[in-house]
Structure formats: structure tokens, C-alpha cells
């Protein structure tokens, strides 16, 4: 079984999403998607951008990030954006550090209630795309419920689930995943191996093919430019 850990607020998980879903059709498998909610402030500091341009001032950024943390974050968004554009996706950097636990509970719910894989994929695609268009608040229960409804997934009982059993399950899962050595997204769990990062997609495919020959090296998939 292939398990994939993801988080709707991660730009790298965003640009990996479609590529990972493609494994389902290519290999005739069902991926076990699990949410891993990154606590960004615990490893990259916190920052919030306040847009005051309407008053004639430059946008202000508040937080506790160091210069090297900013270097890493800026590179990450620049890097993810070029791969997003390669896939025709829009990736706007968030203006604050989000807690995505609620959206992660939404994923657990969607896994359980989706009537088809296409419906689950639709929810995940919408969550990623709308978050990176700054049109989806991943910490907002109402927003998650609305997104579920917009993709045709029942929301009957979701509020109670999100405020009770669902959130408890999600938080327990976070503990278990960290104990297992999982700390970032996307992470792939297959054949007792852990792979962090979409550069391992070829190696995951190699596992799905039965590990023939030498394992492939890391590779970020790049789609050939198509003529207009």
C-alpha cells in the first residue's frame, strides 16, 4: 500500500498533488492519503504580512523569522511557483502562517464520506487551489464545510465530527506520524520505506513496479512546454 502525507498549506504538497494522483490511474491503486499538519512556526518561525498600501504605506511584515529562515522560505516559494506555473497552477504566497488542522480534519472526513475517488480528488484539488489563491481559510470550520459541500460531499454531522472525534483523531495521528519519523510533506510511505519530497516520485513508482534494477535518482518532474 502507498500512503501519502499531505497538507493543504504546503506549496510543495500543492505542486505534487496532481502528480501523485496520477499514480492511482497509472498503477491501478488507491492511495491512502493522510493529513500531516505542519507546525511551521516550530521550524521556520512565524510571520504575518499586513497590507497597508491603501494608506500609502509599504506592506509590513511582523514575526520572528531570522535571515536564514527568510532565505529558505523565499526560495521555497520561488521554487514551488516555477513548478506550479509549469502545471498551469496559480500559487500566491500566504500572508500569514496558518494552522491547517481544520482542513486536515476535512480530509479525514472526505476520505470517509466521498462516494468516489474522483470526489475525493475534487475536494483535495479545490482545497489546494483555493488556498493558494488566498480564497480558502484552512483554519475555518465553516470554510472547510463549504468546500466539502461544493464538491458534493455530505456535510451532515461534519461540525460535530470536526469539533470532537475528527479533531481528536487528527491530533493523535500527528503524534503517531512524528513518532514514525514523518515531519514534512509530501511524504511517501511504501514497502517500509519513508520518502520525503516529490523528488522521490520516480522512486515511489519504482516500488510500485516491484523494484526492478537500480533505483532511480531524485527528480522533480518537469512538463515539456507545449506550443501555444
Amino acid at each position, binding site marked *: 500500500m502507498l500512503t501519502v502525507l499531505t497538507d493543504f498549506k504546503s506549496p510543495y504538497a500543492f505542486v505534487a498533488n496532481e502528480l501523485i494522483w496520477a499514480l492511482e490511474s497509472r498503477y491501478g491503486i488507491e492511495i491512502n492519503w493522510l493529513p500531516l499538519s505542519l507546525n511551521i512556526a*516550530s521550524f521556520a518561525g512565524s510571520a504575518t504580512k499586513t497590507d497597508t498600501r491603501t494608506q500609502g504605506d509599504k506592506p509590513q511584515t511582523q514575526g520572528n523569522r531570522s535571515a536564514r529562515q527568510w*532565505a529558505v522560505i523565499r526560495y521555497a516559494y520561488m521554487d514551488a511557483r516555477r513548478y506550479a506555473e509549469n502545471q498551469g497552477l496559480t500559487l500566491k504566497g500566504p500572508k500569514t502562517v496558518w494552522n491547517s488542522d481544520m482542513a486536515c480534519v476535512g480530509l479525514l472526513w472526505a476520505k470517509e464520506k466521498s462516494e468516489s475517488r474522483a470526489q475525493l480528488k475534487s475536494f483535495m484539488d479545490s482545497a489546494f487551489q483555493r488556498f493558494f489563491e488566498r480564497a480558502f481559510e484552512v483554519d475555518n470550520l465553516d470554510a472547510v464545510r463549504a468546500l466539502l459541500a461544493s464538491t458534493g460531499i455530505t456535510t451532515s454531522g461534519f461540525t460535530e465530527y470536526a469539533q470532537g472525534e475528527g479533531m481528536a483523531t487528527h491530533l493523535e495521528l500527528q503524534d503517531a506520524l512524528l513518532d514514525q519519523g514523518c515531519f514534512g510533506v509530501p511524504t511517501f510511505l511504501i514497502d517500509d520505506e519513508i520518502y520525503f519530497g516529490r523528488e522521490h516520485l520516480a522512486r515511489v513508482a519504482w516500488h510500485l513496479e516491484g523494484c526492478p534494477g537500480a533505483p532511480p*535518482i*531524485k527528480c522533480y518532474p518537469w512538463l515539456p512546454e507545449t506550443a501555444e
Partner: protein
Amino acid sequence: MLPLVAGDSGVRAWLIDEAVHLAVDPSDAESLMAVKAASAWAKEKDITLKIWPLLRELGNPAADVPIGDSQMERLKARRAKARAQYRALEDRRARDYVGLPSTFGLSPQSAKALAIWLRDTSLCRASMAGIWPELSEHLDTGSESIARPQPAEDNLDGAPSLDQVSEALGERGLYTTPAFLVGGHVLIGIGHLPLIEAIWLAKA
């Protein structure tokens, strides 16, 4: 051999757009994996490749997070442990790819000598495409794991110091290894070869 320009102004002149530049830490298995993969790739694609030693690592930015409450500190410690375990796993995979034993390790002196070899070879040759077999001769894959770099084939008096090379790379946005510089684009990690090829072809 490229025109020799003394000191740090020289290395800036050598970071030319007409090449793919790869910055590596010679003591790191992931960097050696990048050298092996990129040099084979460059040879196959007929791409000009320069490989430079970058001896200033960024370190772990997570260490800059201010001390928080006990719950946050526990989380940070657990995450750091998971990250360290994963890095060890990736290091093992890189060693397997390169063919290095699990005991491989370069002393600071050997790593510096290998860095000088890389710098001098990059300065002397138009391209380091296909360099891996030659470089791997300088790595003793036996239990002692000692690098044995050979003297540069040209007189490089006036070559930039390793610090000057690292500083010049840093000014171009290369702050960790392995990382590439091509056509003004910085790409961190060995996985970017398909994009680098696309950039290269677009420039051609």
C-alpha cells in the same frame, strides 16, 4: 583553460552564463551523488558543467526559532529527532548510489584537498561533464576512506581562495549544497536536472 583572473574577481568572472554551475560540499554524500549524477547527465546531453566547492553551509534554520513554552519545545525536539533520522536515511541512500561504504568519511584536511581539486579542475577545464570516474579515483572507498586528490594540471597561482569561491557563490544565491546556478536561476537539490535542461535548451 579559462582566462585566469586573480582573486575573488576571478571566480565571479568564471560564473559564466554559458555553463551549468554545481556547488557541492565534498565531504557530503548527497553532494557526491549530485556530482556523479550531474556529470553523467551533462556528458550525455553535451552540456557545459562546472563544479565548485561551497564550504559555507546554511545550517539548520530551525535552530533560530525562539524558545517557546514547554509544549512547543517538546514538539521542536521531536521534530528535530525525526528530521535527523530522515537525513541519516537519505545519507545512506546517497552513499549507496555513489558506491561509498557506510564508514565513508573525509577528514577536514581531505575534504579541503578535494575542494581544491574541484576548484582547480573547474578553472582548468572547459567542462567537468563526465568527471565522476576521475573524481572517484580520488576517493578511497576502502575502510579508511581517504581522499587522494592529485595536483592541478596547470599552474594556478593567483586562483581564488576557497573562501572567495564560497563568497562568490553566496552572492549569486547559492547558500547550501548541492545547488545549481544556470542562466541566473538558483536550483537547490539534485532533482532539478529536467528543469535545468529546459532552461539550458531555452537559452540555446
